[in-house]
């Protein structure tokens, strides 16, 4: 069995082994093996290529961009996605625009340990994908499975664009697979995680699993819910979403991030503008509540969508 976290470590090991231009840079990624042990033993296996960085996300990303310009393919680990705002300027003003300004590609991968875990609180639980997806020039990956965590991270390193790799901390240990995948669906293509005909849930990352659990519950009530895993939110696979809504006529977009101007809003906007005539009911969405993320596990449990709250929203949608 291999966990989501181990898949991320294995992908980095393979990238280091296969491409001499790859190196890993981040706080405590070297000797310590990373805050979550995503780079465990990599410093020993690849001497001189897994480097501890100072406590400055600004400097970490800035230097990675410089290295990318010089032909390297750096993988940067932010200890928590929440801290990436300290390096925000380097990501959105430098990395995202470099190729467009200079015709020099910027093949950096920024790993963001994202999303909430019980007791994480406001500074260690954020989902930042919508923020980065807002900027042209960035690719934003949000893998929801062990297989995707592995294959998408390898793809992130391989492509020439800067990639924001949102790996979900809750999935690190909770998600396990039999083995690593031998082939992969390309980034930019969503996956139908569960086929159904009554309604479509469009989601990504950890919310895929809450949505699948909800679909299972509703199957017991006779509803057949289709669940789509976006896999990457930029590019966003509108075609797969529209094709699904064409089958079901009903859409619920679910995300762990805040609602305001986020991925669920974008999904609904696209369906409303490109597929209005497919809708048999007003499209719905469910997000975390529009407040900072609470510390207390009980509060946190009611802050983000769960299978139960997704189910409640879905029942409302099915009744419309």
């Amino acid at each position, binding site marked *: 069995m291999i966990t989501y976290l181990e898949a991320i470590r294995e992908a980095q090991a393979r990238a280091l082994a296969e491409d001499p231009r790859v190196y890993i840079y981040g706080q405590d990624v070297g000797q310590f093996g990373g805050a979550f042990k995503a780079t465990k033993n990599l410093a020993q296996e690849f001497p001189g290529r897994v480097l501890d960085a100072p406590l400055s996300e600004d400097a970490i990303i800035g230097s990675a961009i410089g290295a990318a310009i010089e032909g390297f393919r750096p993988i940067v680990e932010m200890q928590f996605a929440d801290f990436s705002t300290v390096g925000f300027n380097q990501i959105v003003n430098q990395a995202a625009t470099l190729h467009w300004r200079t015709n020099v590609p910027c093949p950096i991968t920024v790993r963001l340990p994202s999303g909430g875990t019980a007791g994480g609180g406001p500074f260690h639980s954020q989902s930042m994908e919508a923020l980065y997806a807002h900027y042209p020039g960035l690719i934003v990956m949000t893998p929801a499975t062990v297989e995707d965590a592995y294959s998408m991270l390898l793809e992130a390193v391989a492509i020439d664009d800067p990639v924001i790799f949102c790996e979900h901390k809750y999935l690190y240990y909770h998600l396990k697979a039999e083995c690593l995948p031998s082939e992969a669906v390309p980034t930019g293509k969503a996956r139908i995680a569960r086929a159904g005909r009554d309604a479509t849930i469009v989601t990504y990352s950890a919310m895929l699993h809450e949505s699948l659990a909800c679909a299972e519950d509703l199957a017991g009530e006779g509803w057949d819910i289709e669940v789509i895993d976006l896999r990457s939110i930029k590019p966003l696979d509108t075609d797969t979403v529209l094709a699904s809504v064409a089958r079901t*006529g009903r859409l619920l977009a679910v995300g762990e991030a805040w609602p305001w101007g986020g991925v669920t809003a974008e999904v609904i906007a696209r369906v409303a503008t490109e597929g*209005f*005539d497919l*809708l*048999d*009911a007003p499209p719905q969405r469910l997000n975390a509540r529009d407040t900072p993320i609470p510390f207390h596990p009980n509060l946190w449990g009611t802050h983000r969508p769960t299978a139960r709250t997704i189910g409640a929203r879905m029942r409302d949608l099915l*009744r*419309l």
Partner: protein
Amino acid sequence: MPQLGESIAEATVVSIPFNVGDIVDSDQDVLDVETNKATMGVTAPCSGRIVELSVELQHSYPVGATLGFLEVTNEEAIRAGLDVPAPAEPTAERNGETRHAEAPAEKKTYGVQPTLRGLPVPAHASGASYMSPRMRARMNELGLHAADLAGVAGSGAAGRVTVEDFEKFLSQLENHKLSPASSMRVAVADAMRRSWTRPIATVGMPVRIDAMLAHRKTSDPKPGPALYALRALAVALGENSAPAGRLVGEKIVHPLAIDVGFAVEAEDGVLVPVLRHADRTPLAQMANRYNELVELARQRRLPANAQGGSIATVTNFGTFGLEWATPIPLPEQTMVLGMGAGRIVPNWDKEKGQFLPVTEAHFTLSFDHRVLDGGGAGRLLQRIASLLQDPGSL
């Protein structure tokens, strides 16, 4: 502003019989307001002194709006179901409002806040008539109309027909024998469906037609009975064309000319040839043209100038042996005049003191109730009936 009735969302203040400072009793009318249904009084929720009137004459206020303030005793306030705070609040004098200053322990000003719950939802906002974009698109694709769904039981919110219901309905149709409707049938269906979006009412009365039948016998060419009715309607509308006006928004659109159509049954449908300026053309001059148009309509070869643009239609459903009917006006018209089959009935003759046989037919007028009321329709029918008693003058 209280809820003054179902589907009343606002009311206009038409009279303010009291002044600030006046004492009013509980349930006494303190304001007269006019809704789109009636003029009625707004009553005081409890006895007290009017300290503020927040309304202006001829202004409209929604249900739930504050109309004014009453100064009342604690007992009255409790009786009206308001919470009464602990007495002797020195803050009563805030904002420098002296009216609260006198005996603050006993008197207090409260705004009565009627509940906003129970505001009526317009009937078309939800329910069976709500159609999702997908339903609309699917029906457009198949060339169907809302009326085609009348027999589908909806399973959605408030009984709306969902796409699943619709597809199930369509698949069940395949079990039946299906034959194409003729283009004539489709055209009639379209006209009737569009017309039925309006509130159509019908009034009717028996009319003696002995004089008309006698006149017809002596005429050459013989005018059809419907032509008498058509001419009488045209003369009546020539005197006052307002009942045939169309309501568009907040305007009555008056007819340019009294061009009146008449219904002719053709294969699988109805055609309506038109006689132009029927108010200015005597009956005798229209008889030939009328007979000619009947023939052309039956052959479905009506010339363009004899179609469309009419302001009312006459239909003689009596030719089918029917005595009464409630025909539907054409969508671009406000009314249709119908005539039933003539029959001989006993009529009390005062002079002779006995029943004598007379020939009578029921005339009906179906009309857009937005434009015309029962009274107006009745007067128009009466005028037509009276004109028909002297057919020689038509």
